């Protein structure tokens, strides 16, 4: 059970244009809370700062201002505290083709986090846990899958391996950055459905980063709309999508493919 809170996060990047410098404010005063069992979706177009937030939460970048709290405590930036933090906050990346090492088997990918975070486990115990993880992401028969290398799996299966890997240390918060946008359309819902199920089982707090409003609405409880580093609208998922208030949310909603709109025109015309 972990609650992650971001308070007034700001991130500046320094730009260099020849001799002149400049500052780009990628994230500007962003606050939100990830609670156990709840999904928050972060939507916005490319360059709006969504992924910078993921980097800040994962401590791959340091915020220029603001703080990140875990269960009310400011996060540790080094040593044992950082290791604990990394165990608690895990990530699923967008591209399952790049995030798995083609050289190693599935077993190796899952074994590493288990060994790192629980160094005292015996070899048999680790193997059992690997199989259990595969079982949980529905990659059966598990022994067969564990011995495979990434190229012997489809994109959706690879992404499920990535999800299993993120679950391996037993995290409390999962950050999923466009977890299904690289997958074939017919398996996207399956993977999201699986994520939602695992979330319920583990009582995870999930940050779902996407530009797809439709899945954000169906998958998340709360939606934050980001534009140029700022959160311009936030609220209950249905509320934000069906009754957008901010101009930018309206633009975003109008840009999403919506066959109903066209087809009603065809019917009428």
């Amino acid at each position: 059970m972990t609650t992650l809170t971001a308070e007034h996060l700001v991130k500046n990047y320094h730009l260099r244009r020849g001799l002149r410098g400049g500052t780009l404010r990628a994230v500007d005063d962003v606050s939100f809370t990830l609670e156990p069992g709840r999904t928050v979706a972060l939507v916005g177009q490319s360059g709006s700062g969504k992924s910078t937030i993921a980097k800040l939460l994962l401590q791959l970048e340091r915020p220029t201002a603001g703080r990140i709290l875990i269960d009310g405590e400011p996060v540790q930036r080094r040593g044992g505290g950082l290791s604990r933090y990394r165990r608690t906050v895990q990530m699923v990346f967008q591209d399952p083709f790049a995030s798995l090492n083609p050289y190693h088997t599935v077993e190796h990918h899952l074994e590493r986090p288990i060994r790192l975070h629980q160094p005292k486990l015996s070899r048999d115990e680790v193997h059992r846990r690997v199989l259990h993880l595969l079982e949980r992401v529905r990659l059966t028969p598990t022994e067969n899958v564990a011995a495979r290398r990434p190229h012997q799996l489809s994109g959706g299966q690879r992404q499920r391996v990535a999800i299993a890997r993120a679950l391996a240390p037993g995290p409390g918060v999962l950050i999923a950055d466009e977890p299904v946008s690289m997958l074939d359309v017919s398996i996207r819902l399956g993977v999201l459905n699986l994520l939602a199920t695992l979330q319920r089982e583990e009582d995870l707090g999930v940050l779902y980063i996407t530009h797809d409003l439709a899945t954000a609405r169906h998958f998340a409880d709360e939606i934050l709309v980001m534009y140029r580093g700022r959160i311009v609208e936030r609220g209950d998922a249905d509320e934000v999508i069906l009754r957008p208030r901010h101009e930018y949310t309206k633009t975003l909603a109008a840009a999403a493919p919506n066959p109903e709109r066209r087809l009603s025109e065809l019917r009428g015309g």
Partner: protein
Amino acid sequence: MSGPRPAPPVRPVVSAPVLTIENFSVDYLVDPVVHAVRNVSLTLRRGEVLGLAGESGCGKSTLAYGIVRLLKPPAAIVSGRAVFHSREGIELDWNLLDAEELRATRWDKISMVFQGAMNSLNPVISIRDQLEDVFTTHRPEMGRRERRQRCADLLERVGVDPARLRAYPHELSGGMRQRVMIAMAMALEPQIMIMDEPTTALDVVVQREILREITRLRDELGFAVIFITHDLPLLLEISDRIAVMRAGEVVEFGDALSLYTDPQHDYTEQLLASFPSLTGERGSFVRGGMDERLLALDAVRLDDPNAGSTA
């Protein structure tokens, strides 16, 4: 849903075909032989947008490359033909053209926007030189001043500031590069444009702008478009007719409305069900408990452990 989207203009109902594809089959001559496209027959009418939907590996790109004879070995067209009907009433069988004729006809009659097109610009040549190259190759008689003017006009048409002619590809954003590619494909005013996932790498807002641009230009210039993507809702929105491909075959072919309201093939239904509606009923399919059927579509296959999908 209110949006700044203009209503699509009323189109002529049925017009003459501009491209006829008959019994088209493409094999990849590897061991074992892969039948990538099997007996596909389609007609493309003048001025229409034909959507080609399907998932990765279904043969949609192979078909598109096959039409313009851009396939390289081990791919081989094993049967069928693609016949182009020009505005003047001349029929052109692409299979019968020799290399020089093919070179002259491609881009002039049928142009393509390739998948990941924004990365197919040459990074060390300016936008202007790359655009002018089209004219120097296909319209050698054109004077320098006219050529420059045409290049500027083209960029303007796709909504890029003509001042950017001097830029190099890395100085432009992804959306702008994609527009440059579309401008390049329109340079010779071809009668057919084949677009292979032209907007997949772009975010929704830019995608919407480019789609609007394509539709507008289509209405203005009257070319026909073959639009290839896996994004069925997008196709339903922009195309007149849609062909759904699976494992090399066209499993369903019909106009957008009937395909959406009354899909005949199970696979079409499955594809349609893969897209949750933005504004409709909030379905239970994502959060309403584990639905093992969804993942059954992506089960691990034991018979061929080496079947590494490109998905």
